């Protein structure tokens, strides 16, 4: 899914990198500018528009009553879907999600699920029969690199502002979706031995390998995913994990904690 990048641009970026620099002047572990607008879609129970540099991702959360899973009869259900619509990148094609869209949705989903971000036990309506289904829909608008972190950020930001629409379904008063943790995904790419966080679209095109690390508020890890056809050393992985957990703290404090 990486974009095509000209050889000249590649050489330029590579030479910069050797001198410890990035094209936009950031440090290797520094993310681009982040902005999060929530409540942007009135028709959704929760929503967030995240910009990460030029990357833009809209996440909408919709809720409706439905059946629980047979193996967790008294817990709500989370369904996460990502649409890599062709509006967002010349690399995206219309049609059902391909392996990139599926991986994106599944990693975001695992971050939310494994961190216990949503109190699923608080989403039971009638045990064994009816629970709340939480649909997290990720709509990529402009893929200028690292849609993984932007999507993950959008998902938790939207969840944090979600109202359970109980009234609409005759199930009492509306109430805020119970949130128990704030998972943050941080993705690094590796190229020529150098590790860079929050790659832009050119850096992504250059690198073979990504590592996404999702951490909880308490600094523990709830998700890791390597993708791409390159390799990582054990040390690189440990280092990425460490930086990811540290950086996540800053973002959580700045943008998401109440």
């Amino acid at each position: 899914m990486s974009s095509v990048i000209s050889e000249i641009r590649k050489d330029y970026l590579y030479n910069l990198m050797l001198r410890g620099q990035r094209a936009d002047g950031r440090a290797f572990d520094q993310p681009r500018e982040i902005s999060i607008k929530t409540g942007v879609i009135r028709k959704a129970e929760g929503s967030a528009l995240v910009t990460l540099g030029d990357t833009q991702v809209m996440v909408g959360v919709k809720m409706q009553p439905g059946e629980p899973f047979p193996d967790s009869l008294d817990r709500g259900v989370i369904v996460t879907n990502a649409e890599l619509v062709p509006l967002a990148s010349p690399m995206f094609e219309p049609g059902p999600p391909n392996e990139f869209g599926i991986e994106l949705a599944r990693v975001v989903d695992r971050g939310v699920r494994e961190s216990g971000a949503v109190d699923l036990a608080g989403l039971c309506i009638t045990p064994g029969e009816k629970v709340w289904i939480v649909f997290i829909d990720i709509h990529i608008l402009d893929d200028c690199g690292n849609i993984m972190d932007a999507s993950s950020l959008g998902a938790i930001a939207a969840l944090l502002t979600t109202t359970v629409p109980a009234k609409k379904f005759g199930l009492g008063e509306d109430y805020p979706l119970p949130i128990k943790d704030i998972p943050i995904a941080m993705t690094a790419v590796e190229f020529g031995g150098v590790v860079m966080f929050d790659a832009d679209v050119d850096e992504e095109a250059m690198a073979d390998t990504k590592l996404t690390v999702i951490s909880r508020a308490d600094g523990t890890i709830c998700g890791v995913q390597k993708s791409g056809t390159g390799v990582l050393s054990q040390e690189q992985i440990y280092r990425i994990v460490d930086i990811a957990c540290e950086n996540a703290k800053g973002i959580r404090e700045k943008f998401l904690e109440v």
Partner: protein
Amino acid sequence: MQGNNGNITFIRDGVRLDGRRVDELRPIKIEVGVLSRADGSCYMEMGDNKVVAAVYGPREVHPRHLQEVSRAIVRYRYNMASFSVEERRRPGPDRRSYELSKVSREALEPVILTSYFPRSVIDIFVEVLQADAGTRTAGINAASVALADAGIPMKGLITSCAAGKVDGQVVLDPMKEEDNFGQADLPIAITPWGDITLIQMDGDLSRDEFRQAVELARIGCGKIYEIQRKALLDRYCQMESAAQEA
């Protein structure tokens, strides 16, 4: 058109539920060039509708057998986000979006100078982020601006607007309630010189009402056209001054 409005009165003393007069548009907001990856783009709000349009191209056609030797083909994909409507919709196209994509493409194609770009494709993508009656017209308006932003040579901007009928009266730019419980819906799209590139209608109109509705929708288009032009002009000035600063 359910025609069954319960006991709602939609127009009282010439004023509609949201305070508009019968010939008044909902508030409109247009931003040009909102996306980096696309060759041209536009964000548009028409009342509670929120749409983004992107244009890619002219570019190579895939799959190849679709390519035309003497002109560019135009593709248009109208898509609603799952969260854009009251009840979550399943992702992916349905029959309605296939039809809207077709008529929207046919609304824009007459002004695009496709013969300049043989064997290529101009792709227009419209994402509806929030829907409130009138997404097809908002999409066409946004797409038209995005085409201009992409520098696609056109004979002129296409502008689209609907008229409806509620309480037996023809009204401009119906919103959700008027669309759901009204008696007719008639969207059009026109060229700057008045040719009609899209017209659809359903509901119940006499021939006279039909003509009234067309006239009213044209007036609406005229107003929207000015907003489209202004948005493009602002964008152009902004880029000019950015260039001069550099």
